[in-house]
């Protein structure tokens, strides 16, 4: 049942992405409305699929194994939710043309490519800290992915403005001021959730290994702390020195790339969650 729902969600995401991409070429308010509606349908069905999976697995915190695909699927759903909220606030259909294909690109390998189940260490299979850690990490990553998207759009738009050669898509992009403000606000929220994820992550680590900061530092933790430090510096620079625009956008891009490194580290070797199902 859950698989069917996920496939329906994937279809809705794909159709939504197609609507937004078509809008880039042929602008029409109908396409934007259709894109939004399809993403909304997709995300509702997607969360329903998670609900069904949790119900089948015995509900709540007693999950004993996880798959990389599930993690990316959760990320995709949270990112689409974040986009819909962002679009509701700022009207950013152009970001839909970024989020739609991104979601499909994440969902297809997440659900169509087989991945081995990894066993969760028994010490933390009922841990609230682990639950909060996963939730905060997913929300933080989704919010920072949106910030990354807006920053990329900012850099593209700013370049055209500087070079005085507005391209075809220039007209569809919102103002630089809006991209800068929205991108920065998302970076701040992403930083808050990332901080929470790191703090709860260290609690999980202590429950499993006895130490909140196990040494040597694994790639996952290393990248997460580096990304956190970079976002912290970015916020500091904005607040104290008034940095904005291109510099901030580039830092957000760099921070998100580091965060992606965290997930690569997580999939290659996750100390707290290590193990492979038989």
């Amino acid at each position, binding site marked *: 049942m859950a698989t069917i729902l996920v496939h329906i969600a994937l279809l809705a995401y794909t159709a939504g992405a197609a609507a937004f991409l078509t809008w880039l070429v042929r602008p029409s308010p109908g396409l934007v409305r259709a894109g939004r509606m399809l993403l909304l349908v997709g995300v509702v069905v997607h969360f329903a699929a998670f609900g069904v999976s949790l119900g089948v697995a015995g509900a709540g915190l007693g999950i004993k194994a996880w798959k990389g695909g599930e993690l990316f699927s959760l990320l995709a759903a949270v990112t689409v939710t974040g986009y819909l909220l962002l679009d509701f606030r700022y009207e950013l259909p152009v970001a839909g043309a970024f989020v739609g294909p991104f979601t499909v690109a994440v969902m297809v390998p997440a659900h169509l490519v087989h991945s081995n189940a990894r066993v969760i260490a028994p010490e933390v299979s009922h841990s609230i800290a682990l639950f909060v850690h996963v939730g905060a990490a997913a929300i933080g990553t989704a919010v920072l992915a949106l910030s990354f998207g807006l920053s990329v759009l900012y850099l593209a738009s700013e370049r055209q*403005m500087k070079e*005085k050669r507005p391209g075809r898509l220039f007209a569809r992009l919102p*103002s*630089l*001021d809006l991209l800068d403000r929205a991108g920065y606000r998302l970076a701040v929220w992403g930083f808050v959730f990332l901080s929470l994820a790191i703090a709860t992550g260290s609690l999980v680590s202590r429950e499993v290994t006895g130490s909140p900061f196990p040494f040597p530092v694994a790639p996952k933790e290393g990248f997460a702390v580096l990304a956190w430090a970079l976002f912290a510096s970015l916020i500091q620079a904005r607040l104290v020195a008034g940095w*904005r*625009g291109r510099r901030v956008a580039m830092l957000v891009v760099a921070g998100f790339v580091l965060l992606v490194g965290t997930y690569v580290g997580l999939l290659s070797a996750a100390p707290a969650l290590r193990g492979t199902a038989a």
Partner: protein
Amino acid sequence: MTLLCVGLSHKQAPIAVRERIAVPAEQVEGRLRQLKSLPGVREAMLVSTCNRIEIFAVADSRDAGEDVLETLGPVAAPHAVRRFEEEALRHLFRVTASLDSMVVGEAQILGQVKEAAAVAQQAGALGPELAKVLARATTAAKRVRTETEIARGAVSVSSVAVQLAHKLLGSLDGRTVLLLGAGEMAQLAARELRSQGAHELLVANRSPQQAEELAREVGGVPVSLAELPALLVRADVAICSTGATEAVVTRELMARALKARRYRPIFLVDLTLPRNVEPSANELENVYVYDLDDLERVAVQNRDLRASQVARAEEIVEQELKAFLLASRERTAVPVLARLRAHAESVARAEVEKTLASLQGLDEKQQKTVRAMASAIVNKLLHTPTSRLRTEAGRGPLGEATAALFGLEAEPEQPGEQASSEQARAESAAEGAVLPLLRKR
């Protein structure tokens, strides 16, 4: 009835002619009443802008076109164009969608057509036919604006500057605009920025007296040019047009201001030659310098973009035009259908009642069955003619032939309450038969 369009635009007549026949706003209502009083003219609307003077009218026949033309006077006659029916309709759709404008895609024409319609309504010259045409023309124009990029991108230097300011800063509410110098184009841009919500307009000039005069003219605040470093910290947009022979805003000056303004972006528009803003200031972060050439280049690019959208816009206009024509043809086919159905039903009803009266002993259920059979025969017999008439929708001879064949021509104008209520019932029955089929499509 015929839709006609008589008049001229920038395409047919030079400004010297247009200005002689232009109708001042206060005289439009009077002119419309004059048009309405012409023989055969039922409805009229006058679109009078600086680029066109055109009369759209619904008349009994094409002959009214000459009378309408006469109202424009002898100066207009050699240049005026007469358009009828589909051609007139297409022209109105194209005009409203800004495809016939001097600057294709300009936004004002839609408002001007709506205004013309409002004035015509006020003068009692706008009737149901023109109203229907205008509603569809407006729909087509809106589709063209939203589904193509024909209206995107400013095409004049000052409006490009305003558009780029929006692109950089978003809303101009609460923003500060600095006007350096008194160039005409700079004043135009400053006024436009102010009208679009800029909070403060600072006017600086080498002569304080000139600054004060200019500030009064554009609704700004006079400031001294000696305060330029501080002004560059305050402003979000600076429009330079001082006539100085060397750069007034240097890279160094801007770099210092940038730090003090905590890297808030600034848009420097240089509208003079020699340039007032050092071009290398554009290399600074969050500083955007556009001179005349840059603005003109963007304007040309926007004009090219608009031109590339014309084919798609014409396609939309044609779609809407065809849909409108089809709908109106179907409307004209309905009366014949209504009369045919009413005739058939009344014949069937009369025969059934006669038969039932002669057949004694039929119970209610049996009588109902006989009536249903008669109704089914009528429906089956009329099915093919109804569908053919609807498909043809007034384009061919079938409508007239049907009316002649069944003797339906004389039916409509029946006096008396009973007759009109019967007719209304028959028409609604016919519509009931036709509308579901239309909805299905």
